[in-house]
């Protein structure tokens, strides 16, 4: 769930065209880039796919933070493979967004100057090695909750990107759980690291699903368009129900004293995250917002000469080929 608080655009298109468009979606047809679509649908999707893509890119930073300190060669290799997958996800998603008429450079600039967001979760730090396990287990676990239903989303390129991404994400989630299990079953210090990671990342993971349905004003239109498949609270509940037994199996304590199974509902009752903290993070006041954005800006600025150089070479080569013909 790398897209949060996506504002759906009001749409002022021809009512007949709109009705026909909605009928296609209701019939389960896929909308392809060359098809007619309401301007609001296009803009909302750009925002949503863009935010997801940016999350994959910024998400490299908290994991990259531990690649050089990974404790074994195997863990280092797994983490490198995972980060490589994530950069690849970013690439497919930027391509999906490009089919809607926005270039990768434009959308990147919007991330770098703060006009577009990425998931709030990546504004939290990774402080010990168990965080890397917890990111796979909780963060990728939460992402999968949202992305599995999005495989059925109405926009063809987005749906196809999700099918590919979900396969890799489920591997990420399993390796994360395996890494944290090793810690939870390890020495007292390792167990302490695992518990510390869960303590810090539990509520930020719940926040990934976005605010409660009663405060989420943008859902109805996006759900009608099938670019949002479930409500925030439905997915959050599903995540809690799946994750609590896993934490129990690991012998770790979820940092929620009021967490308990509700026989009647058939679900866990849990404490909501502190939404004022969530809105602070969204506004730029999370623990790492400034540093994450600065790191991405630095990479982009420092890389300018490389992009310019390679482009200049490609042009020279094309000109030489042309002259030779």
């Amino acid at each position: 769930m790398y897209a949060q608080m996506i504002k759906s655009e009001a749409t002022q298109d021809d009512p007949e065209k709109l009705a026909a468009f909605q009928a296609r979606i209701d019939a389960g047809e896929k909308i392809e880039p060359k098809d007619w679509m309401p301007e609001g649908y296009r803009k909302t999707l750009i925002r949503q796919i863009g935010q997801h893509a940016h999350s994959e890119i910024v998400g490299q930073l908290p994991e990259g933070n531990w690649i050089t300190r990974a404790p074994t060669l195997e863990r280092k290799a797994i983490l490198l493979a995972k980060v490589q997958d994530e950069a690849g996800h970013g690439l497919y998603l930027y391509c999906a967004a490009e089919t809607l008429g926005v270039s990768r450079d434009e959308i990147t600039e919007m991330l770098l100057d703060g006009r577009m967001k990425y998931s709030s979760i990546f504004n939290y730090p990774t402080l010990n090695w168990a965080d890397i396990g917890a990111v796979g287990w909780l963060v990728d676990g939460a992402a999968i909750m949202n992305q599995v239903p999005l495989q059925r989303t109405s926009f063809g390129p987005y749906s196809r990107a999700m099918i590919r991404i979900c396969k890799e994400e489920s591997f990420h989630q399993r390796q994360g759980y395996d890494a944290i299990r090793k810690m939870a079953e390890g020495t007292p210090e390792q167990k302490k690291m695992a518990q510390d990671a869960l303590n810090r990342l539990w509520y930020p993971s719940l926040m990934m699903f976005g605010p409660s349905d009663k405060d989420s004003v943008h859902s109805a239109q996006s759900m009608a368009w099938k670019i949002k498949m479930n409500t925030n609270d439905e997915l959050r509940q599903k995540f809690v129900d799946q994750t609590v037994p896993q934490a129990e199996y690991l012998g770790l304590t979820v940092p929620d004293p009021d967490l308990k199974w509700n026989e009647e509902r058939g679900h866990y009752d849990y404490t909501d995250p502190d939404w004022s903290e969530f809105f602070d993070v969204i506004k730029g006041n999370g623990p790492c917002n400034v540093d994450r954005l600065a790191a991405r800006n630095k990479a982009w600025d420092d890389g300018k000469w490389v992009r310019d150089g390679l482009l200049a070479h490609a042009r020279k080569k094309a000109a030489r080929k042309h002259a030779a013909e």
Partner: protein
Amino acid sequence: MTREDAFTQFLLQMGDNTLILGHRVSEWCGHAPVLEEDIALANTALDLIGQTQMWLGLAAEVQGDGKSADDLAFLRDAWDFRNVLLVEVPNEDFGRTLMRQFLFDAWHSIQLGRLMKSSDERVAAIAEKASKEVAYHLERSADTVVGLGDGTEESHRRMQEALDYLWPYAGEMFQSDEADAEMVKAGIAPDPASLREEYDTLVSRVLTEATLTIPESRFAHKGGRTGAMHTEHLGHLLTQMQWLQRAYPGAKW
């Protein structure tokens, strides 16, 4: 030096080169100039770490004292490392990172080609697997060196500066000692000096296309592959890489 010691030293040279370079390349994660480069750098680092598992795994087996590849990677001090100095120098800008990669890949691909004919089947098998990955590394680093050398004025200047800085580190890959002589005698590995001609031809072809000038001096820093004297940089790299294993001895990860 016994044959077994020479063989261990050779395997450590191969594995430490890939370990230390893989570590350096992995430092780029999330900071590359363009998304495709993030993917390519992570992919290169991943290949190198995978090769490390094989070389150091075999080194541990040959040593036969119950150590693992991880013990060798995470619990030796700098003086026991046998990588060439080239791979431990810091990344600096993307130009130096890719020039270092190219100078190494060119040697690595020639070396692995020879090792595929090693009298030791295990060495030949690792070389065979690694050579496929390294062929791609070389293709990519050579293309990038050409693209940036023959790009803009700034990219050309930066690549020439990278080459001037790194060239004195290239020669160490071709230095031979008694351990190498032992490996040649056993048919396990080629004499490093015998790779130089092919290397010079390859490197000169690519750098000419990149419009870059190879420095005239053949002076070569040395001390990495014998362990006699590493750079100051290696110790810092190890403090980071080995930290968890050192801080929590005996833990399983």
